């Protein structure tokens, strides 16, 4: 099995006023290509911090994070940005869509940021929108969509550049149970059919069951 994400002696400390708080302590874990992993843990356990460190949204206090064999902590801002465009797709709890751009524009944003011509991605856009069942909502703005639909747009956006890894921070945290099921099935389908590695953070055992493996984080430590 190929290790796609690897953390080595990872530490993260925050300052709460003058007091240092160690959120993650000595994390060593490996996620293999094609896995669907769920990080679980109580509030404040450090699970989201771990996810953000994996995506290069945050910098570790100590230790290494290898993504596709490269230490992202040693990368420059530009290199990290390129990695987020091409190798990692993010899905957030509150969807984080650009409210005044259409579904189509939102999905195509990573292409645009990568300096590629949108023309060559029209077909792919249609395919992805079909996968997330939003072909008929292409020219709508996020304000005109339901929560589940918005999250599916976010998933489509995360997939447009065909990344190897999909990182999802409580992707269903803001959805009702029926929509949660739809979104989780979609993620599962993406994992199974296109072999994407998915790492999600979740509170819910039900959503964790859609994945292959659960990583528990408690008091800043990982319990596999």
């Amino acid at each position, binding site marked *: 099995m190929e290790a796609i994400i690897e953390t080595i002696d990872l530490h993260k400390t925050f300052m709460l006023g003058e007091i240092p708080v160690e959120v993650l302590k000595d994390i060593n874990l490996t996620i293999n290509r094609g896995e669907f992993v769920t990080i679980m843990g109580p509030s404040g356990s450090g699970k*989201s911090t771990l996810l*953000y460190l994996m*995506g290069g*949204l*945050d910098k570790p206090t100590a230790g290494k994070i290898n993504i596709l064999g490269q230490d992202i902590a040693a990368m420059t*801002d*530009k290199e990290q*940005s*390129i*990695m*987020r*465009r*091409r190798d990692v*797709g*993010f899905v*957030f709890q509150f969807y*984080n*869509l*650009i*409210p*005044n*751009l259409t579904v189509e*524009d939102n999905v*195509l*944003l*990573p292409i*645009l*940021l*990568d300096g590629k011509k*949108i023309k060559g991605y029209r077909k792919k856009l249609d395919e992805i929108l079909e996968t997330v069942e939003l072909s008929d909502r292409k020219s709508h703005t996020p304000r005109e969509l339901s929560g589940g639909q918005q999250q599916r747009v976010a998933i489509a*956006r*995360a997939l447009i*550049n065909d990344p190897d890894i999909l990182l999802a921070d409580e992707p269903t945290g803001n959805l009702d149970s029926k929509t949660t099921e739809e979104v989780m099935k979609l993620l599962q389908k993406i994992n199974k059919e296109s072999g994407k590695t998915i790492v999600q953070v979740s509170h819910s055992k039900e959503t964790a069951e859609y994945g292959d493996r659960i990583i528990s984080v408690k008091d800043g430590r990982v319990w596999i």
Partner: protein
Amino acid sequence: MGILIKYIIKNIFEKKFRTFIIVISVTLSAALFFASSAISGTITSMYEAQIKMQTGKADLLINPNQQSPSDFFSIQQQPIDGVAYIVGDVSVGGNYMLPKAEAQASKIQSQRLHLRGFDLEDLEVLNPINFSKYAVDREFKGNHIILSSVFAEKYAFDVGDTIDIEIRGTNRRLVVWGIARPTGLFRIHPQSDSMTAVMPKDTLASLYNVRSRVNSAYVVLEEGAEVEKVKNTLSSLYPRYTVGEPFSSEELAEYLNVIVVPFFLMTTMVLFISIFIIYSTFKVITVERLPIIGTFRSIGATKRMTDAVLIGESLTYGVLGGVLGNLLGIGILYLMTDLLASDPWSGRMDVTMEFGLGHMIAAFLLAVGVAFISSWIPIARTSKIPIKDLVLNMVEGKTRKKRWKVYAGIGFILFSIIAPRISPKFMALPASTISMLLSTMAVIMFVPYITKGFLQFLEKIYESLFGNEGILAAKNLNDNKNILNNISLLAIGISALLMINTLSHSVSIEVLQAYNDWDFDIMVSVHEGDRNTEQILRAVEGVAATYGTFETWEGVKVADVDYRIRYIQGIDTNKYRDYVAFRTEGDPDRVLQQLDEGRNIIVANMAKERLGLKVGDTITLEMKSGNRSYHVIGFHDSIMMNGSNALISERYYKMDMQQPYFDTMYVKTSKNPDDVLVDIQTKFMRRGMWGSTVADMEQRNTESNNQIFLILKAFSVLAMLIGIFGVFNNYMISFIERKRSIAILRSVGLSKKQTLKMILVESLTGGLIGGVVGIIGGTLMLSSIPYVMKAIQIPIGIHYAKSFFINAVIGGIIIAVLASVSPASKTSKLNIIEAIKYE
């Protein structure tokens, strides 16, 4: 980049009022900058056009001066390098005696004519006449005359008619050869009582016994000839005559300084407000966009990319404001030119605007620059926020105590107080201007502290005045950034208004004081006026007393120094104080007596400062009889010719200026000065005279000042207007930001009425503090003004009007209360549950 552009455009159009405020701020800044920078060229070209009407294609003029042996001279015939041709004219005065009935009706016995003697062929090449009619079959010579169409229509003359004109005291019967449209030489000056007519040069020359001589020569140069070189050649050929360009750009530059500097000062104020508004608006924009910026970053946008989106937005405002600013600037320039074109002293000029691509590009770049610079700090700050904080919207407004601001503020105030007072003359203008801006910046930096101080005090009295809602309002205002921004905006706007109004008020008072210094009613100038003329003048009914003066309004240059005393009077020490106020240190009679004791001089305080004089010094003046040294015996307080004046004894004036005749006569009247002036004019009509009542001169002076101040006031109103828009916007932002906290207050029992009361007390307090801070800022700015005015050689004292200060505070309160009406009404209609849920 299509999507990003679409995103920027959508952002711009989504918040229409905000976009409007930014664009209007940039537009006005660019427009006023455009108008201020183009006005100088426009006025120059208008004056040039005005002068060209008289001098046509002439590149140089030769005229007699004080040192010339005669007012007439011969044009030398030898060819001169670079000169294409020289045309001369004989210019004299004449009178058309009105028919009796008309004279009785208009109370004027004659119409003065400025007779210009030209060869028609010469005029054809120099300054062609635009004829409406002329005698095609007859040569222009002998007793022919060309009248202006205005004159011809007024007195019903046609080509071929005869007309009687009095020239040199003798009646001459002339034949109307042509009628000219009122352009070029024949242009009408509404303020002048004289009209132009053209006669054959030889005819006029023979009437004055100056055959083949002229009293002005117009030199047209060959193409590519060097003006300076030809000027030097001609100066050596006509050594005792003045060779100069028809248009002295140096003199005009000095005059323009007076107009342009205040315009630029006001433009800077508007610019300052715009920068402040754009800066504070962009702070809101960046805070609003943080989650979106986070999203962009999370999907791979670099800092540079997200910065580019925000900068793109600010540049779009800049470009839009730049284009609109140029258009509006042309309109403002036209209005300014139109106002300045109607000079009460010299009549109305034709309005022609002079601006080029350079002005437009400069205004455009300023607009883009203002938008970019003002938005850069908030954008750069956003750029530093970690992505995770952006994504999770964990950015909290950190209220770091910025101690450096206090130190900088103190430094700015100290600079603005000290710099104008100690800076050398050549630095006086920039130092004073920078001081004004720094004092405004300092006031803004102190706004949070001043507000805090006020609130501590107001909280105590608000309890008894407005009850608990008053206390709540005072607490809400503490550290409320939007309210602090509002106070700053009001303060800058009010400062600018207060400064201009006080300045305008001060100038009016100074003008009034200047004319109050004159204790006579009419000023008259009669050709070759002497003691006999004075006797005749005294015989006019209503003339109570007269004082003949020897004075020069052209001024006298101080030898070896680049300074010209612009007005010198040789005074009759026995009479002077009966006609003009004389203020000096020590005993005025004693100082005046000393004048007669030798070549002594009393210098006005402003000129004293410029020349660095003290009692006992000697200054050498370039007078008509040559250089003469005068002993400084004292100084006097006078703003005649903006303080560039001096007094010497009449005896030495007559001697050194070789002047036997009075320049003017001051007349005291025992009845209505206007009626007395009409009688004086009638009496001296044939001798050629000029006269004006002091009241009329004062009115014209006031009108002339009012035109400039009207424009400056309009500038300051515009500054205030942008400020008001900013205040309205800030109240709306404040409402949006406070929705939740107000909803919480409502949920624990604050009634709608109490909410309204609380918000109105808040706005009233904001307005009150804004007004007071505006007064502090305005007063600080005004403290630099005397130095700015001194630098542009208009020394004036600042006179404060109590009403302006009261109006500033009331105005601040009204604006703030009005701006809070809409947010207050929205707040009272707030859906508590929705607002509490709002994140």
